């Protein structure tokens, strides 16, 4: 018994250590963003918001932030729309080549970003679409639609299969039913999906870097700064990026978990 308790203690300590490893970079990025040192280390220098003032006065960063917001908010709308359509098609219908159809939608995230980035760059310049914000948006929606599809499909899985037919039976056409039954039922999943796809798009750097041209997003700016010298500005920008994506991911999870609980009732 005591031996078991001893093992338990060691395992929990190990688990704690792993969590420290995972969250250390996030924590230090935030801590260093308020640190006056040029090369941050321990012991810490003075508290300073110097880096924040620096990025606040940087027009290029402002422009990148605006670009990022535009890209991720349009991406999340397109990806969630596409993901919803696919999830519903998969839930409701059987058709020829459905396997291929689903593979077509779900495959992109399994391909390394650098390869997608190269392919996108070449293709978009071929069709004359490279170097614009739209190029990033199109590429990101392909990358993130599978996440939207997965979340919404999970929700549809929980739906009583008779619910849709019940609405037809009460006089609702298929379109009425979509509007009055399927969409309201999927609402929490749709909100989850919007947040999560926005977060992925907001953080994505490889494709953005390749296809953005002069319209840089925040991760591209970070990439470029990092390629130069050590610059604690990155920590300040990074802190903003973290808070944005963490907020989005947590919002997504809260909606996701809430309906998971409700589904169990």
């Amino acid at each position, binding site marked *: 018994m005591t031996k078991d308790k001893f093992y338990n203690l060691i395992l929990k300590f190990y688990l704690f250590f792993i969590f420290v490893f995972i969250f250390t970079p996030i924590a230090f990025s935030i801590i260093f963003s308020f640190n006056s040192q040029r090369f941050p280390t321990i012991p810490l220098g003075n508290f300073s918001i110097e880096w924040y003032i620096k990025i606040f006065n940087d027009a290029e960063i402002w422009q990148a932030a605006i670009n990022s917001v535009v890209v991720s908010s349009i991406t999340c709308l397109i990806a969630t729309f596409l993901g919803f359509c696919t999830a519903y098609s998969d839930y409701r219908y059987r058709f020829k080549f459905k396997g291929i159809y689903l593979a077509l939608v779900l495959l992109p995230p399994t391909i390394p970003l650098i390869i997608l980035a190269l392919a996108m760059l070449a293709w978009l310049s071929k069709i004359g679409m490279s170097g614009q914000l739209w190029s990033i948006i199109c590429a990101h929606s392909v990358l993130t639609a599978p996440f939207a599809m997965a979340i919404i499909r999970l929700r549809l899985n929980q739906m*009583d299969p*008779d*619910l849709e*037919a*019940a*609405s*037809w*039976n*009460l*006089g*609702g*056409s*298929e379109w*009425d039913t979509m509007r*009055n*039954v399927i969409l*309201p*039922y999927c*609402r929490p999943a749709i909100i989850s999906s919007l947040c999560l796809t926005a977060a992925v798009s907001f953080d994505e750097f490889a494709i953005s870097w390749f296809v953005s041209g002069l319209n840089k997003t925040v991760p591209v700016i970070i990439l470029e700064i990092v390629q130069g010298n050590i610059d604690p500005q990155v920590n300040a920008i990074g802190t903003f990026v973290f808070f944005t994506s963490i907020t989005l991911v947590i919002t997504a999870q809260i909606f996701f978990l809430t309906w998971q609980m*409700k589904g169990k*009732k």
Partner: protein
Amino acid sequence: MTYPLVSFKNVTKNFGKMNAVTNLNFEIDKGEFLAIMGPSGCGKTTTLRMLAGLENPSSGEIRFNNRLMNNVKPHERDTPLVWQSLALFPFLNVQENVEFGLKMRGVSSKTRQKKSLEWLEKLEVRELAKRDISTLSGGQKQRVALARSLVMEPEILLLDEPLSALDAHLVIRMQAVLTQLQKELGITFVYVTHSQSEAFAMANRVIIMNVGEISQIGKPKDIYRSPANQFVAEFVGRNNILSGKVYDIKSKIAFIKTNSGNYNFEIIDKNIELGHTLNYIISADLMNFSLVKPKNSNIVNCKLISEEYIGSMVTLFLESVDGTEFKIQMQEREYSKLNIQNGEKYWLSWSKKNVHTLKKD
């Protein structure tokens, strides 16, 4: 000319290679309470879904008031269905659920409110109007589901095993509610179930289905007393089914030889001839039980194997010398007076008038 409310003519439904129902022919009259009954996979739910337009027949015609309905979409019909799963919309409250159909029909919000409350009132759940669906009990959900369908004021209401999820005591109560409603409103009810007690307790007419075909249509009593074939005889009630060959006929009385003995029965307008092989059926509740050998002509000596109580009734399972199983049903009160024991031998007997026979092919 008057037409039946619903008519099925040679209706067949295939799902790919699988035959769900074959060649259905029947009519449903205005105001009747029809039960469709059968084991699972017999096609009863498919039949109901075709009535609601959720499936289209592969061949044959379905008519409502003589109007051909084959390709009329579900939402263009007026055939509300009470679902086995109830299928209440979890994101709407009770009243919004009831209003749903009216909203789809474009009824104004004022009328919707009035009517939905009226029907909730009729089903005695008006006080739940603003409640969330997930907070309701099984019986309350049942009533809300009924209100949601009935608020459409249809000519016909379809019910798909609506009571299967309820506790036994609630089932009895809801049966009473349903029968009462049906009488009051004069609406046609089509009730699909696998439960014989539900069907026989409520319906005016019962359709028994087996592997996609109709086995028998008739009043509950007719089906119970004169099953049309062996399937119905086995599916319905506690029947003793013996099989044997007619070896003698004397003045409207036929004599039959079975494994467990020789018995007789009255011939009632049936073509029974010497040498016919028959199913010889006696309902368990028409059997007599005695401790001593009765003077009757149809008797068998059996060993008591086990007993089963259902409410105030008890069913005894016995076995004759040759191993044939017999069942007898009696009042528990009577049974306890007899003071009988498992493994002991007793006598069963029955009147030649209470025998039902089916010709075997």
